């Protein structure tokens, strides 16, 4: 199995405060990894390290065979908690198109119907269809619901056909059925297109059955492994330093209860 990204003995600091240290993590091709942990644990920071937006204080990192930041065009990224209010009069598909060519200088001139333009349009139609956003991609993004916006933003991150997809809380602000369908969509991208996905989430439960591996960040450390290895009462309690309990449901699925950071307690304010 080929290595997509690796951190070795990595530590990150914002100013004087160390966010996490002694982190060894590998992402292998085609796996779906959940990044979990409480607020402020450094989950977003981890993605920023992979993108080359945040430097390491100690240790080393490589992404797609190069130092972070050098293979940026092969990474799709969905930043945390973006939403567009109703006054934004830009269609979803124009936003998706920015994922494809938004960084290119110039201005698309009316009346240029080159082959490149046709290829771009076909690609945008394809990613919109892939995330199931066809029905609302021509509406202004501000008029789409949170879940619809999230799908369009995933399409934007997919536009350049990335090898590595970094999604920062794409399930935030979605209801349970939508959390499940977005999780299933991401898993399908992994399985069918072989994209490696790192997805940040607060609550592991809606994701648990889709993930190949989980990485927990808490109290300055990281813990990684398959869900069966990591998601146990002992390991999570030790990591969080609080009573976390892992239950096995009658259908064999795991359920984590008592995370210090369940969305129900924490996220009421920002919706």
């Amino acid at each position, binding site marked *: 199995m080929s290595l997509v990204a690796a951190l070795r003995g990595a530590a990150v600091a914002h100013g004087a405060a160390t966010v996490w240290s002694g982190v060894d993590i590998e992402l292998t091709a085609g796996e779906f990894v959940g990044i979990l942990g409480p607020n402020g644990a450094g989950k977003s920071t981890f993605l920023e390290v992979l*993108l080359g*937006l945040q430097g390491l204080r100690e240790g080393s990192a490589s992404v797609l065979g190069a130092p972070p930041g050098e293979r*940026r065009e092969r990474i799709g*990224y*969905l*930043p945390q908690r*973006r939403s*567009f209010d109703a006054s*934004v*009069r*830009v*269609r979803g598909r*124009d*936003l998706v198109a*920015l*994922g494809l*060519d*938004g*960084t*290119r*200088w*110039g*201005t*698309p001139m*009316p009346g240029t119907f080159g082959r490149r333009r046709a290829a771009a349009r076909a690609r945008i139609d394809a990613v919109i269809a892939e995330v199931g956003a066809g029905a609302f991609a021509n*509406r*202004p993004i501000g008029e789409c619901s949170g879940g619809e916006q999230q799908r369009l*933003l995933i399409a*934007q991150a997919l536009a350049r056909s990335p090898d590595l997809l970094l999604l920062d809380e794409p399930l935030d602000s979605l209801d349970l059925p939508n959390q499940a369908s977005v999780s299933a969509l991401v898993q399908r991208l992994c399985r069918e297109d072989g994209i490696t996905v790192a997805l940040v989430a607060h609550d592991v439960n809606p994701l648990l059955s889709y993930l190949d591996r989980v990485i927990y960040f808490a109290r300055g450390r990281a813990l990684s492994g398959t869900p069966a290895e990591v998601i146990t009462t002992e390991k999570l309690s030790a990591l969080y330093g609080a009573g976390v309990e892992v239950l096995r449901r009658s259908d064999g699925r795991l359920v984590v209860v008592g995370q210090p950071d369940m969305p129900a307690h924490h996220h009421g304010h920002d919706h």
Partner: protein
Amino acid sequence: MNPSFSANPLTDLHQLLQYPFMVNALEAGTIVAVIAALVGWFVVLRRESFVCHTLSVMSFPGASGAALAGLPLASGYFVFAVGGALAIAFGSRVSGRRSAMQESAVVGTVGAVALGLGFLFLSLYGGILESVETLLFGSFVGITRGQVETLFIVALLAGAVLATVGRPLFYASVDEQAARADGVPVRALSIVFLVLLGMAVAAIAQIVGVLLTFALLVAPAATAQLLTDRLRLSLALAVALAVLETWAALTLSYFTNEALGFCVTTIALVLYACARASRELRR
């Protein structure tokens, strides 16, 4: 000059174009309308209307400073508007990121300082500025060939800059976070855009006046964005609206002797209100 409005538009047009000053005014007005619409389209998208208003206030110290120094008015307009743009660009960033709170504080302060400086220059100058009313509300009577040519060069420059940075600027304007992560030089672009805005405002304020520049910049673009969500169509519509509004305002101003800025504003706001109303009704 004895303007009289007839029912025949052709006669009216013929009457207008008889005077060289009116030809200059139409040319200058058209150039200014095109820049205003293009730059204004991004102002609306970036929600920088307040910045835009403040930069137009910079024309007051610009005009009085130029009078004090004995320089042409236009140079004062440009120096102060671009200076104000730079002050806002560099003052309103917190650790490299755009901060709305910091920005509105800095913009407000720059506006207040501009007014203070304007009065200081005015009192040092001792005299009365040729026409305060013209400064504030605009006039098309005195536009010279040289002014038209300067405006044309500014427009070409602004157009070239926008054509170069258009797409990444659009990206940074609607989706700053993603654009930054994608490697778009968001900060550099916002500085470039503010300087461009300063230049546009200085150009427009010479014709429409300080107080109403804002209307020509923001209203056509806002109207166009209300009417359509197709990007190129709304950009083209903004330009068309701004040009037509300016022509209509020039004609109205000529036949009624009302200040040009007043006419532009009235027409622009009526159209904006219609667009708003038609949208609300369609819901």
